[in-house]
């Protein structure tokens, strides 16, 4: 069960919303929890059992270093043990696929909660129902956003049910759905085609086109999902945090990763980088802290060499920027923009290929200094370029903030906005109905 499934949109979601709005306040969390359990359970019952056990265990263990046990002499050990157990569980599954859906996301949210409780930034959640509703909450269950407990807990305690949230949340959802179905899924055919042809036979212009197409595809897939999650959350009155803030408008890699998958970035900043000293303990220590963060970020995505190299490549770039490049890029924004639009897509090529040798082949097609490829068809660029041009161009336009600002951020032209969103929604519905749509790309993490 995913957000782009027609049964989800027209059966599950309306039923969950109706039940949620109709039942009295004290039962609303039961509705949320039950819907979330069903949502997750339709995917896999053993994974649901795992999350339930995980939730219960963490609820109990958090109590051992907080609340009544706040003065416990061993609270530090209890806290460390709990966090270590969560990390171990996540690491074990990462090394033994199939990885339960959402585990990377919910484990990080649970750890964040526990760190916040230990540091006395938030009180321990005394209601297992509320805690369970938080961990299972279906809008953010599969791929985030990675929330802090206090971003959700108020709504769990006192459910604000305003019609404006229902409408606005639905609009956000439609934009996200359109990004996924009309951009990401359509563009994905180009990247798929490259692996069918075989990288060694791809012409150099086609290799560059493919790289930028993958860049667009990944962005609209994940940003689309995040908007759907935020939109659904909003329909239930939850204000989930933004995950993407026009990242491709950045002028440096450092800035990009504050605006791309922002909730993961801030998790690493708040719970790893800053506790290690951040950038306040001298340049050498700063570089070391960055190395730790980016190695872990790579591993979070997968325990495979290509993800480690991907994380390390970002570390190198960010370190260089920290040392001297950033100031220059910030003061020459045009260069910064061009730099970003080359460098980030190149790093995605490490991300996209699990097989390290094929990364080498792809780079040799991008920069054909050694070989001219094997059995290359020089017309491939024009053939696929023309075929995918409309979607690629639409994708480029939607990299800018204006389309979203118009559809979601203005009070004017409301009739036009409603008309456009309606058309987008039903075009998506037809497209989903016609094709087996592609699974969300971050579902594998």
């Amino acid at each position: 069960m995913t957000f782009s499934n027609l049964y989800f949109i027209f059966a599950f979601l309306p039923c969950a919303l109706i039940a949620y709005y109709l039942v009295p306040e004290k039962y609303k969390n039961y509705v949320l929890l039950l819907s979330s359990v069903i949502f997750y359970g339709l995917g896999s019952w053993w994974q649901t059992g795992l999350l339930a056990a995980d939730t219960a265990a963490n609820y109990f263990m958090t109590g051992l270093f907080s609340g009544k046990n706040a003065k416990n002499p061993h609270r530090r050990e209890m806290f460390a043990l709990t966090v270590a157990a969560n990390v171990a569980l996540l690491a074990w599954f990462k090394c033994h696929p199939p990885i339960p859906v959402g585990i990377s996301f919910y484990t990080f949210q649970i750890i964040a909660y526990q760190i916040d409780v230990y540091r006395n930034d938030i009180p321990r959640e005394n209601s297992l129902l509320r805690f369970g509703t938080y961990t299972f909450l279906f809008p953010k269950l599969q791929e985030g956003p990675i929330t802090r407990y206090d971003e959700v807990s108020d709504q769990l305690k006192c459910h604000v049910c305003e019609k404006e949230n229902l409408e606005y949340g639905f609009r956000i959802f439609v934009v996200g759905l359109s990004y996924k179905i009309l951009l990401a899924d359509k563009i994905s055919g180009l990247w798929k085609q490259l692996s069918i042809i075989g990288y060694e036979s791809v012409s150099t212009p086609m290799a560059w086109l493919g790289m930028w197409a993958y860049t667009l595809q990944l962005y609209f897939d994940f940003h689309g999902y995040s908007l759907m999650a935020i939109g659904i959350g909003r329909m239930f009155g939850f204000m989930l945090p933004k995950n993407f803030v026009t990242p491709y408008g950045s002028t440096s890699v450092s800035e990009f990763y504050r605006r791309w998958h922002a909730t993961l970035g801030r998790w690493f900043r708040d719970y790893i980088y800053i506790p290690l000293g951040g950038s306040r303990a001298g340049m050498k220590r700063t570089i070391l802290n960055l190395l730790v963060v980016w190695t872990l970020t790579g591993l979070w995505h997968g325990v495979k060499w290509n993800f480690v190299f991907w994380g390390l490549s970002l570390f190198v770039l960010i370190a260089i920027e920290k040392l001297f490049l950033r100031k220059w890029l910030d003061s020459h924004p045009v260069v910064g923009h061009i730099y970003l639009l080359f460098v980030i897509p190149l790093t995605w090529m490490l991300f996209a290929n699990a097989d390290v040798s094929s990364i080498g082949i792809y780079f040799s097609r991008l920069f054909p200094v050694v070989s001219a490829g094997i059995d290359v068809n020089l017309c491939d660029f024009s053939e696929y370029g023309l075929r995918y041009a409309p979607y690629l161009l639409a994708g480029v336009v939607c990299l800018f903030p204006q389309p979203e600002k118009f559809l979601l951020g203005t009070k004017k032209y409301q009739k036009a906005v409603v008309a456009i969103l309606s058309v987008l929604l039903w075009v998506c519905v037809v497209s989903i109905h016609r094709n087996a749509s592609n699974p969300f790309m971050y579902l594998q993490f």
Partner: protein
Amino acid sequence: MKAFMKKCPLVMVTIVIALVVAATSVVKSFVFPAAENKTQETHGNVSSSLPQSAASSLCAPSNVAGSSKTVSSAGSAVSHAQPKPGSSAQKRASGFKSSGKEYFSDALFVGDSLTEGFKDYGGIDNASYFCRVGLSIYQLFEHPKTDSSTGLTLEQTLRKKKYGKIYMLLGINEIGTGSTDYFVRHYSSAVTKIRFLQPDAVIYIQSILYVTPSKASGKSVFNNTNVRKRNSGLKTLADGKNIFYLNVDSAIDDGNGNMHEEYSGDGVHLKAKYYPLLSTYIEEHTV
């Protein structure tokens, strides 16, 4: 209710449209319950209606005799020696000879995405191609199944120019539709129609390509047992005079009746650098 309409216009519009769509499909299923059965009948009638139309619109009576002969002699297949899969010294099947590239200047290659790949990477640039991703034997001639570059239907393509030889590579898209017999019958009527439109052309029916072992090991219908069943049926369509069966699978066989694992990125399509294996086989098996 009015407040709801004012505050939630998009939700309201969506609910209304969804109800209309739902009502329409309910009404449609009551009014047109036999819609699915009708299409089956049309398919079934294609093969029987063709000879009649051939008789009514032809000029040369000998051609009519020719086409009906092809259909009725489907049983007597040319038995050409099947090269042992994977053997390095592949004996050329008897009756075939090698030809140079010039042989293909009046050739037409008909097929799906595999033929698109063959067009781009097979190296036979002087031939004509009719190909389209997803092309199926069940919908071969009609609109909107046009060639991805010319925009013409197969029928238009066959009426436009005279070809000396026509190569067909179809079958993998249809692997989940119909029985082997159903598939072969449709293939047979397609061949009959092509012979009618191009009576002087030699027709080469290429075997459906194997899939890789990893693709075949999945639970889907994409496995080489099904491919082999259909290929056996296709073999019976050859007559040794105008219609020939080409076992192109022998060029990509890994020795166990599969496509070599490394020849494909997705288990079904050949990688670009391996298409020359097919063109070499085709060049060495001409009449």
